[in-house]
């Protein structure tokens, strides 16, 4: 059968012509600068291959690289836990009104930009911010023990606050598409909700969860505004160092070496995902 589309435009040439402009934009303004980053990071002053920019990066910013990795890993894990808890309750919760309220509640930060999340947390988590006022007012902490959370904890909180709804949305969607019979059967056999979630629901949506977490991991790695606003002083995230190398020293080689290193961190996330994906194909 000849489909309409084939009669609309014959041949691969037409299809390529339609897609060429989009490919050109991505190639020119994304792939090419990315390739340039690799070249600049490995090129010495007189040309030729060098690793000195990387040596300098580790020398100056070794702590920050570890700090970045730790923050992003901790945030990713917390996002996973929050997303599983909320999506799990949305799927298995028995109290219709709680489910409805939760569904309405969790997604507010979904499209709030990182730069605004950074500003929100900068005032909310400060030593004299609303969080401490509420904690003191409710008698949970003494006024003297109020402390600013504007360090690594602030960054993690801002990241989780902003990204958890995104992963929850994906996860809840995947859970809603599961066959209700599986869950029903397990419940009828007397399984508790938590074990239904862990043993029956989660294994079936593992792929979606991992996609959401890897996307969040990569996104958080290149967020500049949140660490800049919450914790700009050392130790801080690599993105802040890159901006500093450029705006203060115009040091593009080291800035690019740092970028390559954060690409490598992102690659760890990607490998983790691919491993899982291939394991699933083999297991299927």
């Amino acid at each position, binding site marked *: 059968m000849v489909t309409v589309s084939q009669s609309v435009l014959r041949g691969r040439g037409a*299809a390529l012509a339609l897609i060429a402009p989009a490919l050109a934009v*991505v190639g020119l303004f994304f792939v090419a600068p990315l390739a340039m980053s690799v070249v600049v990071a490995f090129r010495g002053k007189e040309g030729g291959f060098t690793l000195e920019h990387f040596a300098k990066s580790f020398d100056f910013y070794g702590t920050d690289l570890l700090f970045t990795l730790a923050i992003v890993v901790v945030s990713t894990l917390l996002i996973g836990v929050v997303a599983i808890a909320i999506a799990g309750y949305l799927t298995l919760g028995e109290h219709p009104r709680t489910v409805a309220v939760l569904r309405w509640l969790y997604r507010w930060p979904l499209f*709030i930009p990182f730069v605004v999340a950074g500003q929100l947390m900068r005032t909310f988590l400060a030593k004299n911010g609303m969080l401490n006022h*509420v904690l003191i007012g409710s008698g949970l902490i003494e006024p003297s023990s109020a402390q600013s959370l504007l360090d690594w904890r602030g960054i993690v909180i801002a990241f989780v606050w902003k990204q958890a709804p995104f992963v929850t949305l994906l996860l809840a969607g995947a859970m809603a598409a599961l066959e209700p019979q599986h869950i029903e059967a397990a419940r009828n056999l*007397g399984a508790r909700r938590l074990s239904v979630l862990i043993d029956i629901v989660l294994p079936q949506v593992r792929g979606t969860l991992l996609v959401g977490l890897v996307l969040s991991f990569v996104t958080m790695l290149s967020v500049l505004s949140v660490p800049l606003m919450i914790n700009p002083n050392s130790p801080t995230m690599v993105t802040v160092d890159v901006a500093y190398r450029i705006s203060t020293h115009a040091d593009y080689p080291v800035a690019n070496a740092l970028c390559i290193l954060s690409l490598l961190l992102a690659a760890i996330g990607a490998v983790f995902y691919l491993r899982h994906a291939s394991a699933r194909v083999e297991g299927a």
Partner: protein
Amino acid sequence: MATRALALPASFALPAPLATVLRAIVLALLAFAIFGPLLNLLLWAFAERWYFPNKLPIEFGLTYWYRVFQPRGNALASLGTSVWIALLTVAFSLAVAIPAGYALARLKLPWRGAILLTFLLPQAVPNLPVYVNIAQVFYQIGLNGTILGVVLVHASHGLVLAVWIASAAFASVDVSLEEASRNLGASPWTCFRTVTLPLATPGLIASAIFVFLESLDEFTGTYFVGVPDVTTLPLLMFNATMGGNYQISSITALLLLIPSIGFMLVVERFLKADVLAMVGR
């Protein structure tokens, strides 16, 4: 929800009043975690004076609102710049993404997998190296600090979402409807214009809104490429925050929040499940 019909084995349930209290406490904590920072922002936006150790502003007022919205104020200019850049980005992205999405959804395309992967790159790779080097190149060719430069950077990122959603939107259109229109004698272009395009419109609107929001909220690329002449709303907000002017930055943040939250509330109206199910196919 199907799960609601499930019977709960009584032996595992908490006593009903206790369960209700627990649910209420957890929901209240979550509500505080989500709305606390937003409420704090609202307080700051209307605070005339607020300093330690006062729990609430000492005086509320609109002085800073007048300052933000004064006819020749920075904020209105930045809002204008931001919206203008976002509109140009949407126009540019959709002009390129609609043909690409159609080709991906309907036509026989060589190296289709590789092309789809290329369109995934900007979402799957940290963007910082890209911005750093684009800024350097744009600086040399005089595009740094221009609207065009910022639009190109925003579009190269927004394009990706636009292509994926447009392709899904076209894929979700029933082929038999196109065939019917062709059999009734419509030309290929008429068929596309009167059947395919209208049916794909909700998905295309969704992708336009996504691109618009992404451009409106974009910070890092503008930070590197926009300096020193293009100040979008996020950059203005950032500068006000770093300068310690929390009223101005909170009011600017509120302006940025309105479209974000508005979209969150209506997103499902445009992005229906049938389109979502086709993303990445």
